[in-house]
């Protein structure tokens, strides 16, 4: 098996396992570590995570594919997720998504040619009072305007 966690990641997983009386409870945290270490959660990564926790590859596959936040395919350096649920739509999420899409030159689910940005429409992100909004990797960007989007994307493109 080619994939392996770094030494720090292994230590981190051990600490996480101690939080729960059963090993499987560490599966979601372990999949997050895999995503961070390997970029996305491939079948090979699932098998590796299963071997660490004593779970069959099928069990890990079932769990990993149930949750939307584990990327089963590679995504760009920045995963741009635009909330498209009703409260955001009432404040112009559709127009905002189209603006970002045009700006990046990609459609829903696509990645820019340089591999920097993947654009996705997503369901409610729980920040409805500051709509329209988007999540880029771990960060929320709220009360979006075209000017704000321009500034954020330019900063990330040069980062």
């Amino acid at each position, binding site marked *: 098996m080619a994939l392996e966690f770094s030494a720090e990641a292994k230590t981190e997983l051990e600490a996480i396992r101690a939080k729960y009386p059963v090993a499987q409870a560490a599966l979601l945290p372990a999949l997050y570590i895999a995503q961070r270490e390997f970029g996305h959660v491939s079948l090979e990564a699932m098998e590796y995570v299963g071997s660490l926790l004593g779970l069959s590859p099928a069990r890990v596959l079932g769990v990993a594919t149930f949750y939307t936040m584990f990327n089963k395919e590679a995504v760009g350096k920045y995963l741009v997720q635009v909330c498209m649920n009703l409260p955001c739509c009432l404040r112009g999420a559709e127009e905002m998504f189209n603006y970002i899409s045009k700006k990046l030159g990609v459609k829903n689910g696509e990645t820019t040619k340089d591999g920097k940005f993947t654009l996705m429409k997503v369901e409610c992100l*729980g920040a409805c009072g500051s709509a329209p909004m988007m999540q880029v990797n771990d960060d929320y960007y709220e009360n979006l305007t075209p000017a704000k989007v321009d500034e954020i994307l330019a900063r990330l493109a040069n980062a």
Partner: protein
Amino acid sequence: MADEAKILSRNWGKPDSHKIETYLASGGYEAARKAIGMKPADVCQVVLDAGLRGRGGAGFPTGRKWMFMPKDDRPRYLLVNADEGEPGTFKDRDIMRFDPHMLVEGMIIACWGMQANAGYVYVRGEFVEPINRVQAAIDEAYAKGFLGDSIFGSGYKLDLYVHRGAGAYVCGEETALINSLEGKKGNPRIRPPFPPQRGVFDQPTTVNNVESIAATPFIIANGAEAYRKFGTKDSAGTKLFSVSGHVNNPGVFEVPLGYPLMDLINVECKGMLNGMRLKAVIPGGSSTPILTAAECQGLNLDYESIAKAGSMLGSGAVIVIGEGTCLVNSLHVLTHFYAHESCGQCTPCREGTGWMAQLTGKIIKGQGKVEDLDLLLSLANNMSGNTICPLADAAAGPVKSFITKFRAEFEQYINERKERNPSPWPVGFKN
């Protein structure tokens, strides 16, 4: 009135409101210390007497829930539901970002009341900032000896942990949350057994919403009567309302239960966006039945008044919809959401939510028939009450209420065979 009623949000404006020093300066952790000097049963009784009802949506008395925990010698667990995912709801995020210590202190009180030695906060995976804030608060509490092997030197052991979800609305349902915490798919469980009998790791478990837990330090510190001074007889205390949509000042506002809905819109939210006229309000999160503008007049925000008006207080997520909004497109956004989020375990929900989304999708493409509206209603009626968890009911709520209350708009849309307007929403980049 609303100004005095700040219990949950009283620290939010302070600098470094999330730090333990700020919390301690306002008397923080005194309630937890007091609780541990009380008999556990008395702690549950005070919370019951205060009339605190579950703030996640169901409105079940929190103290009663704690009393359901068996008194045997099995390990017991408290799970805090911070999987805030109901469209329109964003209040728990602010508690966790701005005053995570109020949640931690509430967890100490709840755990003592139920004699649990471990608690987990299950936070939706997207909430990275709230997760970090709660974890930092827990770390600070450990450093002060408020958590750990002998909290406040009492000999009582309590460990608290943060668990990150991974993107699944259904995990907000308590038994799905339990499965998810155990590292499984978030499929809701058949009850019985109920969580207090057999919950997480097969042990007695209570699942409470963030806001319910955060209200308990005030109740323990000041007594049940002090809490009952706010709100109505059957809906005691204050509540956080997260208001979104077509208002000038959307956000999270704490008001006493029973507060007038139109005051919330006109005073706290500074009126309708750009002077729009009110068309409708979804009062308690996307799954609660929509209310027409006429139904909103004179309506008070408490469990009983909203139930009487034919909807639910739910999580206190008020989605305000202005005149000019296309409710046909709006309903499609919601049916699409529920189809996306159905876990697929029960046939009526898995098939029903998908079918509903197909039908509304057909209508917004200009290919709908008036009979499709009756088919949608029939689907909704056949889904309700026929599944393990309430997600099917949640999906049916908007379908039934939108079509019943705004049937003329739906029929007109279908009869005019409208193609979906590329920009169906009346408001663009105005924030």
